[in-house]
């Protein structure tokens, strides 16, 4: 039998039941920091001007909304313990700025847990700078593999899956479908190259054959039509490729690829079938409830990063609830407990990898309007944990914490 937790709440503590005569117990404030970096040099995958135009309040939208909705949920968990959660947002243009904000929130408000929405280099720098302080960071917005490898940090947790996890999921899907020969279209951005690197690794792990890598350009230059016309880029014999993988972190090119390929083949990657942490169309495991709560409040759809911020808040508030303490050491201990089952609304209970602080999770294979499959597929086995078939497994980790 496991440890049991029990909280009994005096009626007087129940806000709605209060009549005003009881001596109110001063609730303890638990301040969570929210640090927002500058995304001008965006590494965002799947951003598109048309998408952004439809989002009046968030241009481009940030996962703050996800953190806020996580905050709403956390209040209920904190109530029984007399804890009120407070989210304090600070912005900064670089790691230095954010570190100053972090120190202020830490010093003045006692904030020890921070959700960070910043590009990978800033995230890495911030984790390094704050390593001497007693704080804990959640990366809620960078897919970068480097943050889970050579740039990993003991004080940095990741709720968003990294590119390697996404690409492994895609590779598993393609292998199951027997679409083994893949034509890769690679964009000019550094992030596009990183995506191809992750895909190459996944192809090797799961037995896909990359038949060719062709480079596209986002231009209209008629002299560059071999690089800017999908028809030219996808030339091939009938049996030369089964599927087209588009590596396009910014998403603008990939929109034009489906249905324009020379051979009638499915498009995957940045467009077509896309691996994601979360999707608005998911109908199972309580996902419609959280999606609808989010949409009613923010008038837009909840995406990967919103989900990552939401589950980071949930990780913290559950740690506080289950351990009965808001001490940082106890939160940390809970997060690293391999027996925890975090309800991430994706069907199971999940926990963090000890070797790189990455949240284990299944990946949703999505079209524009549907979750086609949830990966890992049952055909892929693992000695310890099936979820470790996705991303950096222990034997291959380049992170040393």
């Amino acid at each position, binding site marked *: *039998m*496991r440890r*049991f*937790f*029990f*909280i*009994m*709440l005096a*009626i007087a503590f*129940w*806000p*709605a*039941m209060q009549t005003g005569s009881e001596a109110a117990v001063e609730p303890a404030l638990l301040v969570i920091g929210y640090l927002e970096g500058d995304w001008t040099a965006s590494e965002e995958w799947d951003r598109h001007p048309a998408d952004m135009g439809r989002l009046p309040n968030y241009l481009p939208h940030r996962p703050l909304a996800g953190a806020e909705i996580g905050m*709403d*949920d956390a209040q*209920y*968990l904190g109530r*029984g313990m007399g804890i009120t959660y407070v989210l304090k947002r600070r912005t900064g243009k670089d790691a230095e700025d954010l570190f100053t904000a972090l120190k202020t929130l830490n010093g003045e408000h006692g904030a020890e847990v921070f959700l960070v929405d910043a590009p990978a280099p800033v995230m890495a720098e911030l984790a390094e700078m704050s390593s001497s302080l007693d704080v804990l960071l959640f990366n809620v917005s960078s897919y970068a593999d480097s943050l889970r490898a050579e740039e990993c940090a003991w004080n940095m947790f990741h709720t968003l899956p990294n590119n390697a996890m996404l690409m492994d999921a895609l590779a598993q899907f393609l292998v199951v479908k027997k679409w083994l020969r893949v034509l890769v279209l690679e964009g000019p951005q550094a992030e596009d190259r990183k995506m191809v690197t992750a895909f190459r690794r996944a192809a090797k792990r799961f037995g896909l054959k990359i038949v060719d890598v062709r480079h596209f350009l986002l231009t209209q230059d008629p002299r560059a039509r071999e690089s800017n016309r999908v028809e030219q880029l996808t030339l091939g014999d009938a049996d030369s490729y089964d599927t087209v993988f588009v590596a396009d972190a910014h998403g603008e090119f990939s929109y034009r690829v489906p249905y324009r390929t020379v051979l009638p083949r499915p498009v995957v990657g940045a467009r077509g079938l896309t691996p994601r942490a979360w999707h608005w169309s998911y109908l199972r495991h*309580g996902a419609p*409830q959280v999606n*609808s*709560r989010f949409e*009613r409040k923010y008038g837009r759809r909840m995406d990967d990063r919103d989900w990552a911020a939401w589950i980071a808040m949930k990780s913290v508030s*559950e740690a506080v*609830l*289950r351990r009965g303490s808001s001490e940082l050491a106890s939160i940390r201990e809970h997060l690293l407990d391999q027996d925890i*089952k*975090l*309800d991430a609304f994706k*069907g*199971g*209970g999940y926990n963090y990898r000890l070797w790189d602080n990455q949240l284990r999770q299944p990946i949703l294979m999505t079209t524009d309007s549907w979750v086609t499959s949830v990966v890992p597929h*049952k055909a892929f086995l693992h000695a310890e944990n*099936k979820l470790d078939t996705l991303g950096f497994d222990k034997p291959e980790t380049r992170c040393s914490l």
Partner: protein
Amino acid sequence: MKQLLPILALFVVLAVPEGALAKGTGYLFISNEKDHTVTVLDSKTFEVVKNIQTGRRPRDMQWSPDKSLLYVGASADSRVDIIDVARLEVVDYLIPGDDPDQFAVTEDGKILIATNEDDNLATFLDISENIILDQIPTGVEPEGVTISPDSKRVYITSEVSQMIHVVDMESHEVLADILVGSRPRRAFFTPDGREYWVTNEISGYVSIIDTEKLKVIDEVHFDPKGVPGDVTPVGIALGPDGKTAYVTLGHANRLAVVDVRTRKVRRYLLVGTRAWNLDFSGDKKFLYVVNSGSDDVSIIDIEAEKVLKTVPVGRYPHALKADN
């Protein structure tokens, strides 16, 4: 089938005064979330007697005390439809707040208590007047509603807040919030009212609460052989003998048979995909398990602990109520 109905109606009219001895219509009622219907099956032949059109997304179902009425929560239309069991038709509806998820009806048939998942509320509704008496705040995403055998308390599960709210039936005051596992769903009380058993879908076990101490006293864990990954218990019911509990394990496609006294799993039976809710036949011989992922119902011989057959119903079946 039409010719049969007047005869059945007559039978029901005659049967009702017999009270507890009433054998019912012999029908099984299954709510189908995606068809917006309640399928009526003959419990002997398993032929479809009728598909009753209901409000959108029918889910939980509960009887009136004499079983002449069946309440069907049509959550997408924010109402509870009332099916006249003799006529097999929706004759009226109740409005217990927004998006009623699960609900319970008091033993005297007067009050319906529903959870409003999106609003984090529980609604107390006067059935005869169709008036909301009270709405109380719950944790995030309230779900299962279970009334204690002495009718003095109602226990409400809160999926996201991972708590059981113990509510006084008279004052509607929350007497306790009891922390359980992750995503508590459905529950039952032992007949003596001393224990409350609740499924935790994500944590994968059943918590047993001592209703006097208002404290978790034990857990029932599941380990069906050859099932990799998560086991997700959702549906739970106490068998007619009062000694056996039945728990549906959605992901595992299994039904666990649990000895209530020892709190140990005795056997796992293979059922359909995403097995959720369950009910027993009036003669206590059969157990019906609704498989919401395979659009069918498993028929189980209780004594033999064997699945006899599986019969198709509508799309995304949710609950089953037996009237045989």
